[in-house]
């Protein structure tokens, strides 16, 4: 997935799994993302919900480190939706 994915393209994605990490402090959302990623097949997309604004950069760095595709972030009501595709 290109890094230039548009917001409308993100909005059109239906995640295979939603991980609700709202209210969790660092490293909670990252650990929940790790667990969630382990439950979906390669190619699937997970969506992490987080009320911690640092989560998107944390998940972005983690995705780059472990080899998943960070797709982008959508702003919701009081939280953010971080989308990642499992790559391996």
């Amino acid at each position, binding site marked *: 997935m290109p890094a230039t994915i548009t917001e409308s393209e993100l909005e059109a994605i239906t995640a295979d799994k939603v991980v609700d990490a709202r209210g969790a402090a660092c490293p909670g959302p990252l*650990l929940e993302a790790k667990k969630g990623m382990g439950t979906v097949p390669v190619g699937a997309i997970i969506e992490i919900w987080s009320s911690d604004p640092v989560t998107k950069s944390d998940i972005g760095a*983690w995705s780059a480190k472990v080899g998943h595709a960070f797709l982008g972030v959508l702003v919701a009501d009081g939280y953010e939706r971080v989308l990642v595709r499992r790559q391996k």
Partner: protein
Amino acid sequence: MADTQKLVFMVLHGPDHPEHATIPFVMGCAALASDIEVVLGFQADGVELVRVGVADGIQAPGFPPFAKLLRDFRELGGSLLVCAPCMNSRGITAADLIEGTEIVAAGRFVAEITSATNSLVY
């Protein structure tokens, strides 16, 4: 592990310093989630952190409960090494430690640190 990277965090602060006690577990969990091997080495007052019953009383503001981080760290496969002389000087025995800890001495710490990608002291 997906690669051969390893981080060693030396933990020297005990329950009286909740933030210093908690941050190495935060870092350790994040590293384990990133497929990096992690060793936490407990020395000085840090050995108090792995005594049975101590974790539940530690809460650093802004961080998850220490007990949850300790549980996550173990579930993710991190190693917990405890300094034997530091235990002895505090009257701590093997029976006082939580499950999953390993009592070691300086030689083991040196081996872990010299074989690590990087080491940090908290």
